[in-house]
């Protein structure tokens, strides 16, 4: 059995420390999944907390039919989609918003390899371009792309999260990568 699923069953039997361990292990991956999908760190934090609250409340009926991480990502995905449907937020296509805190976050995201100022600027701009390109994708294409590229889920796991077939996942990924390649063509790194 999946070790994390085992921990969840222990929490189901009253071991609260098991749930604390699962929270410690998955809150950052879930947070970054939500952030990359929604494009807003505040919303991402809210949904991350809601995801774990839902997991906490649903513990009594939890069954390890899939990996625990797959189950958790499914909850997070549904909450993200609900947030989008509610219209409470819009996925920003314009990254350069002076009121947006994402720019300060972006500066922290640049690899720390002591590049020159010109290189830092170039990397920052490229990261912005990448974010914008991903967010411009439709949700059905953005979701599998983020799950594969950043959350490193397998085709089967992505299919379980999305509730579709592996073939459908592959088709959507192929389409997403094709669109991204077109949008990023001027900036692509060469081997």
């Amino acid at each position, binding site marked *: 059995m999946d070790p994390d699923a085992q921990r969840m069953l222990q929490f189901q039997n009253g071991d609260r420390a098991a749930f604390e361990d699962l*929270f410690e292990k998955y*809150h*950052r991956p879930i*947070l*970054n999944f939500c*952030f*990359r999908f929604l494009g807003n*760190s505040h919303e*991402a*934090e809210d949904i*991350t*907390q809601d995801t*774990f*609250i839902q997991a*906490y*409340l649903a513990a009594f009926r939890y069954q390890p039919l899939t990996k625990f991480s797959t189950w958790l990502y499914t909850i997070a995905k549904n909450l993200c989609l609900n947030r989008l449907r509610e219209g409470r937020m819009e996925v920003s296509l314009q990254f350069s918003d002076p009121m947006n805190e994402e720019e300060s*976050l972006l500066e*922290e*995201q*640049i*690899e720390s390899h002591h590049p020159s100022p010109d290189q830092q600027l170039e*990397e920052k701009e*490229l*990261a912005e371009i*990448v*974010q914008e390109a*991903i967010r411009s994708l439709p949700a059905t294409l953005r979701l599998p792309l983020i799950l594969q*590229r*950043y959350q490193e889920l397998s*085709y089967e796991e992505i299919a379980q999260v999305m509730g579709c077939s592996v073939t459908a996942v*592959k088709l959507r*990924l*192929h389409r997403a*990568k094709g669109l*991204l*390649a077109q949008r*990023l*063509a001027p*900036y*692509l*790194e*060469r*081997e």
Partner: protein
Amino acid sequence: MDCHDIRKNLSDFLESELTQEQSAEIRTHLASCRPCTQEMKRHLATWKTLGKWKEIEPSPHFKQRFWSKIAEIENQKRSKAWLHWDWRPAWRIPLGSAAAVLLVTLTWFLWPSAERERQVAQSDKNNSLVELVTSLDLIEDKEVLAEMDLLQDESFDLLLSLEESNPTLGRGG
């Protein structure tokens, strides 16, 4: 495989999801097809470029806020558990016993007074009858007799008992 098939399987090829035979076939094709090779390079470069988007860290009080919410949920669950506490099984016997005791007590206090009232009423009635039968004038008054329930067994029996105890009763004075 033709170029269309090659490009359709590029992702799986790069992620080693294909069989050895399929991978070998793609390598052979790429060795002699410049457009497909360019497409593969573009695919790799795109994937690498996506890596520029690094992870974020949660805000300073993120964990504290979360565990506060959990604590609040746990408090609410405890409150609701108390409100929905099923009283019946645990308190059935004591409540039943208390109700029985109360009933008996009330009956003990209320019944004697009711009985007394009945006895008093009966006594008053008897006294009225005694007074009546000792007054010949009243007995001979048919209107008075009509008002009385002398024909009822109880009153008639009482009248007989009074006559027997006082033979001069009813013979006129």
